[in-house]
């Protein structure tokens, strides 16, 4: 905005600017300290680049490695050459801006075009392995192994490895990639089980049972099926009931002959009845996620009602906080009020309390049985239990959290309005309301509308205000996916990370809609405030 008011450079100014550039471009001795600082910082960059390069080479991530090399080379070029002085100042900010703003946005947008989510996380090959491994059942005569559960990392969280002793005494290490024979010298075997192995941490009984849920899911793929645990000390090689058949690109159930054909458009194996296997893979679904928001009736209805409430919440929060803040500021805008500095300090105290904690305290104050609000006023209102009282409650919480800020900025803006203007209006016979309506409020809005718009944009995505108080609830009995106080951002969060399975692709599409809405509204309102400034300023 400020750029709009920069006058075109006069010839004199341009001369000055050019002199400035010349002064800068002239070779300067940076001083010994500066040189040493530069060498240290560039050395640090090189060290970080090397440190980051080895894992990338190991993982074969050549694109990422290329980017790393290019960025490092750019940094060295910019700071070692004597030219491009402005770039020296802009490069750090630009790199961080790209890394923390542009890349996440691009990643979100690219995710929105895929079906990424639970059941569609990896490649098709991963899905086939998962289907075959999970369908393994023990058949008569299948090989039995002595099992020791181990890991390559932390006992509680590291990736699981099965250390297996075959009936013939051979020792293997098996993980989700398959079996690998272990040299006899690298392990200690006693009573048919491995008790120690180089490079692996053996889990004791307690540690292994703590991860029993993972153990029952875990399988080491083999040629005919998979090796699965039965308990924590025995394992068997079972036969896969479902097998992938390359010739028909389908999964066949061996016993019944039923087949699920791979469908690349949805990333799933689908049978003739249209039923999908739970394990699929990640594919590009084009605009399906974006159109689903509008066309799927189970999504579109809740989406639009959420959108309406989202607007009501953001506008309502801004209006009530501004109204109360301005009211208090007007009341205290008089030197005749004794002790007004004490009033002001006490009024802004909510602003000093950590909002995270206070949101949780407010949630408990609205509790129907033990909440302070009901006890204090002797009410029996289920505040967070019915849609409208929950909406009122969250707005009330927003009012408490937000009005001290509005009070502060309104007080500042009121003091900046020259008293001559209101006095002149009084001379002309304007009443109190007229003076406020025609003089004070327009002048206040010139200064405050950018803040109000920013506050609107912030509240539009005010995840904490909803998630820490109502968690989006109360939920209607027939649709547990979207509640009465859900904002789009909390709705998106539940889609992406909620209990009913993650749908990252779809959630990313909704985030993109939210981004568009906020960007458009902010752009329009900033444009109109600029016009307002031209009128009054």
């Amino acid at each position, binding site marked *: 905005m400020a750029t709009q008011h920069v006058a075109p450079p006069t010839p004199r100014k341009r001369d000055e600017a050019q002199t400035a550039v010349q002064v800068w471009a002239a070779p300067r001795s940076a001083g010994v300290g500066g040189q040493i600082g530069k060498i240290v910082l560039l050395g640090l960059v090189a060290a970080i680049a090397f440190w980051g390069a080895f894992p990338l080479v190991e993982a074969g991530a050549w694109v990422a490695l290329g980017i790393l090399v290019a960025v490092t080379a750019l940094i060295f070029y910019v700071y070692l050459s004597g030219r491009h002085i402005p770039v020296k100042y802009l490069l*750090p900010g630009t790199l961080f801006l790209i890394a923390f703003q542009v890349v996440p946005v691009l990643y979100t947008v690219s995710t929105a075009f895929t079906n990424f989510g639970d059941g569609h996380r990896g490649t098709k090959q991963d899905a086939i392995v998962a289907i075959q491994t999970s369908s393994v059942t023990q058949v008569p005569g299948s090989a039995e192994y002595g099992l020791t559960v181990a890991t390559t990392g932390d006992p509680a969280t590291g990736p699981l490895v099965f250390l297996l002793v075959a009936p013939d005494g051979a020792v293997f290490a098996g993980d989700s990639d398959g079996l690998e024979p272990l040299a006899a010298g690298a392990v200690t075997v006693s009573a048919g089980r491995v008790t120690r192995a180089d490079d692996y941490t053996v889990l004791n009984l307690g540690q292994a049972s703590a991860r029993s849920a993972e153990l029952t899911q875990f399988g080491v793929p083999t040629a005919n099926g998979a090796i699965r645990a039965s308990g924590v000390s025995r394992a068997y090689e079972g036969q896969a009931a479902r097998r992938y058949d390359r010739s028909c690109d389908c999964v066949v159930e061996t016993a019944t002959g039923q087949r699920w054909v791979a469908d690349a458009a949805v990333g799933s194996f689908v049978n003739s009845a249209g039923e999908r296997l739970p394990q699929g893979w990640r594919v590009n679904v084009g605009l399906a996620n974006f159109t689903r928001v509008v066309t799927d009736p189970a999504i579109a209805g809740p989406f639009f009602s959420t959108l309406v409430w989202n607007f009501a919440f953001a506008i309502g929060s801004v209006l009530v906080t501004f109204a109360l803040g301005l009211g208090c500021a007007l009341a205290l805008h*008089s030197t005749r009020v004794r002790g007004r500095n004490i009033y002001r300090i006490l009024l802004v105290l909510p602003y000093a*309390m950590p909002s995270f904690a206070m949101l949780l305290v407010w949630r*408990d*104050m609205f509790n129907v*049985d033990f909440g302070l609000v009901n006890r204090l006023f002797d009410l029996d209102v289920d505040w967070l239990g019915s849609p409208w009282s929950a909406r009122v409650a969250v707005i009330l919480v927003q009012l408490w959290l937000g009005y001290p800020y509005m009070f502060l900025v309104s007080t500042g803006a009121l003091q900046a309005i020259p008293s001559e203007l209101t006095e002149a209006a009084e001379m002309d016979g304007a009443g109190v309301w007229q003076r406020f309506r025609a003089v004070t409020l327009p002048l206040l809005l010139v200064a405050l509308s950018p803040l109000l718009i920013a506050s609107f944009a912030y509240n539009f995505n005010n995840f904490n205000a909803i998630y820490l108080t109502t968690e989006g609830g109360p939920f209607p009995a027939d649709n547990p996916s979207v509640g009465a106080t859900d904002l789009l951002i909390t709705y998106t969060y539940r889609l992406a990370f909620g209990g009913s399975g993650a749908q990252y692709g779809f959630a990313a599409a909704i985030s993109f809609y939210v981004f568009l809405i906020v960007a458009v509204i902010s752009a329009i309102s900033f444009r109109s405030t600029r016009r307002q400034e031209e009128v009054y300023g």
Partner: protein
Amino acid sequence: MTRRGPATRRAVERGPARWLRRVGWRHGVAWLAVAFSLFPILFVLSAALNPLGTLSSTEVVPTAVTGDNFADLFSRTPFEMWYLNSILIAGVSAFAAVGLSILAAYAFSRMRFAGRRVGLLSLL
């Protein structure tokens, strides 16, 4: 009968009524707002002093006072570490943000170069 202007009418209205109209209501608004501001904070303070340690047994005005909760904070939780972590994160992010912004702002305001205007606008 003399005409009574606004000045004389104002002069008639004296004492408490005048005070109420010009100053008193301001105190009223301020008192209400202060009460609204402070009661959750008093509630938190009262809960901190409450020996039972639950919000549902807490009133706005403390009914019993104990320092146990404050002592527990230091004896039973790594509060010092939380505090240091907060300072570390706030300090590093503030310094990094200000440092990067200063560099960019210096270049934009003191130097003239190709793409300056476009860069500034896209940054905003």
